[in-house]
């Protein structure tokens, strides 16, 4: 069973939350820019929509339709933050949530208790977060749930929309009386052609034979027919919260020397490395936070790694250099290390017949550092020239060793590191 939450326009909600002004809720609001700009309307509040303003309309036209509306520029960061917070909140209630581009959130609620109770919990959370009551629909698949939520929104009374539950097995009968033009998510041309065939309701369309629909409308028509019959084969794509790993150490008494700090940081890196190996992860971003005595805000440094690192040994070099670059003016009371930007750890199949083959990545990194410091000709690798020559210097040619080693490591079989 899937619960669909029709979240009110996220740009409008983000705007209201950002300005923290409840009076905005009763005013016609238009997000997208200002009337003097040649831009489209991104979102309009229900009050503005009542004047005929809709998304995609030119801002100048929106002003003509609703002169008293207040116009606001697009704030994509605020919208993304709000969407992320909403998803995180829903994720706390159910492990499988998805936010569709159309502003609908889907929650899989199988095994989470009574659907009505769960819907009430979700409604309470969204009301608390958005200060408005979202329309909720429950159905066996995403299309049925979204349609139920749309109907619930249309039937909303003064206390807000009540959740609409479509019992399992009754999807087709639930959809049957609905209008094709209003509820079937297909383009206008297809709706027009369906009307010409005399098909106006879901029931009319659902009764058509598959072969006939496929012959007329192709694969798109088949998909629409299945939707009209209450069958939605779209996959549920659950949202994964951004992961992070964090280790911190409190220093009492505070330390003002780099050596003990490095010692503590090494311990943190080792612990993080163990967790990375356990989870089969590799991190791409390291965030170092150093809390100084008598300083309100901690000093923070972020390092984006050139390649994902999956062990403590790999992480230590960048972390140590990050710590050494910090200007520590006061004693340090806490060190915190956080890893983000995870991806699956990958390693190559090592050559079991060659000693130290597992260190090739370290050696190539060291070669790059040497090349940076002393030039590319300090350490080189030779290869025999393809054509033998009588001259000694033409019997071989020099290559960049770091590139050669990297090529060797990349051409090896890469595999995912198994979790320990």
């Amino acid at each position, binding site marked *: 069973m899937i619960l669909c939450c029709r979240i009110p326009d996220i740009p409008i909600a983000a705007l209201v939350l950002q300005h923290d002004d409840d009076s905005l809720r009763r005013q016609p609001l238009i997000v997208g820019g200002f009337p003097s700009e040649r831009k489209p309307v991104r979102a309009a509040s229900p009050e503005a929509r009542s004047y005929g303003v809709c998304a995609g309309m030119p801002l100048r036209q929106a002003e003509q339709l609703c002169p008293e509306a207040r116009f606001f520029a697009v704030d994509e960061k605020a919208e993304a933050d709000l969407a992320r917070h909403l998803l995180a909140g829903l994720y706390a209630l159910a492990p499988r949530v998805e936010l569709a581009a159309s502003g609908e959130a889907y929650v899989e609620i199988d095994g989470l208790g009574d659907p009505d109770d769960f819907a009430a919990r979700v409604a309470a959370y969204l009301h608390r977060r958005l200060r408005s009551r979202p329309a909720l629909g429950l159905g066996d698949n995403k299309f049925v749930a979204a349609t139920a939520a749309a109907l619930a929104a249309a039937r909303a009374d003064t206390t807000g929309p009540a959740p609409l539950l479509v019992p399992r097995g009754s999807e087709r009968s639930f959809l049957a009386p609905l209008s094709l033009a209003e509820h079937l998510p297909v383009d206008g041309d297809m709706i027009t052609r369906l009307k010409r065939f005399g098909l106006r309701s879901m029931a009319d369309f659902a009764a058509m034979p598959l072969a006939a629909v496929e012959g007329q409308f192709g694969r798109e028509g088949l998909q629409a027919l299945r939707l009209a019959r209450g069958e939605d084969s779209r996959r549920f794509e659950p949202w994964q919260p951004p992961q992070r790993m964090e280790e911190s150490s409190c220093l009492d008494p505070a330390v003002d020397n780099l050596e003990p700090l490095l010692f503590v940081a090494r311990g943190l890196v080792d612990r993080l490395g163990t967790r990375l190996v356990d989870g089969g992860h590799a991190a791409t971003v390291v965030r170092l936070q150093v809390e100084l005595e008598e300083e309100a805000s901690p000093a923070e440094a972020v390092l984006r790694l050139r390649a994902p690192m999956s062990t403590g040994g790999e992480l230590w070099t960048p972390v140590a250099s990050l710590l050494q670059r910090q200007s520590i003016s006061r004693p340090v009371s806490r060190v915190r290390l956080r890893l983000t930007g995870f991806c699956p750890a990958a390693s190559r199949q090592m050559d079991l017949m060659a000693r*130290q083959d597992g260190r*090739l990545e370290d050696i190539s990194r060291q070669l790059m550092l*040497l090349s940076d410091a002393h030039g590319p000709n*300090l350490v080189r*690798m030779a*290869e025999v020239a393809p054509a*033998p020559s009588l001259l000694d210097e033409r019997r071989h040619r020099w290559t960049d060793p770091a590139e050669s080693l990297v090529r060797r490591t990349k051409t090896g079989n890469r595999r995912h590191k198994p979790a320990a």
Partner: protein
Amino acid sequence: MGQIQTRFGTAALQNAAAVVALQSDIAPTPRPADVSSAAGCPTGIAEIDDLTSVGGLPRGRLSLCLGSPGAGKMMVGYQFLAQASQEYAAVLALDMRGHLDPWLMARMGARLDRVLVLRPDRGAGVEDELKTSLEATLALLRAGVGCVLADLPAAWATSGLWDPFAASLSAACSRAGAPMLLLAEDVAAMPLRYAASVVLRLRHQEWLLRHGDIDGVRLSVVVEKNKVGMPGGAAEFVVRYPRGTFMPPP
């Protein structure tokens, strides 16, 4: 006793029981108790491997090969590098003279895709070149290079810089378990001799001719110092020069 052990290695003096065991057919190859853990990295020359008592140059330690110019040090070095490159994923050759011949090395069996050649920028002065080279060697040893071969010109072998670097290199080799062979002329700096676990002295005996062409060289070797086995051993061996058309592997 201390002076003897410092000069000739800890195995130079042994108790009588060890000597009796050495002469007994039943007893295994005698090794002092404190050095039994040192494993050898084969040099590719069986006579030298037998002389060191650990089956080659000791891993995790410095070895020094001395000999006058033309004594055949580079051939021994190439053999060692060829053998090590078959075993290790990456080996390092310090080419201080700039005379290293990768083609000859490949013909002697070295895997060139595993050999890193460190050649310092000429003209920066002996001290600067040596310092840069040794710092880079230390960094690569710590990064995981399997073994190191260093060909030292006379001025470099006697440099005062070895005083701090010999101990650092020894420690880095020990930590990495990597054998390091230094080729030097007759005289080497005292810190280097002190840090080396094995000191070999090579002497050229005769050229081997075949149809009027030089086909190989007969060399003699004496173990002047050995911390991992009995010093003083001597042997003769032959190194053949590769001949014929060489085609690179596909």
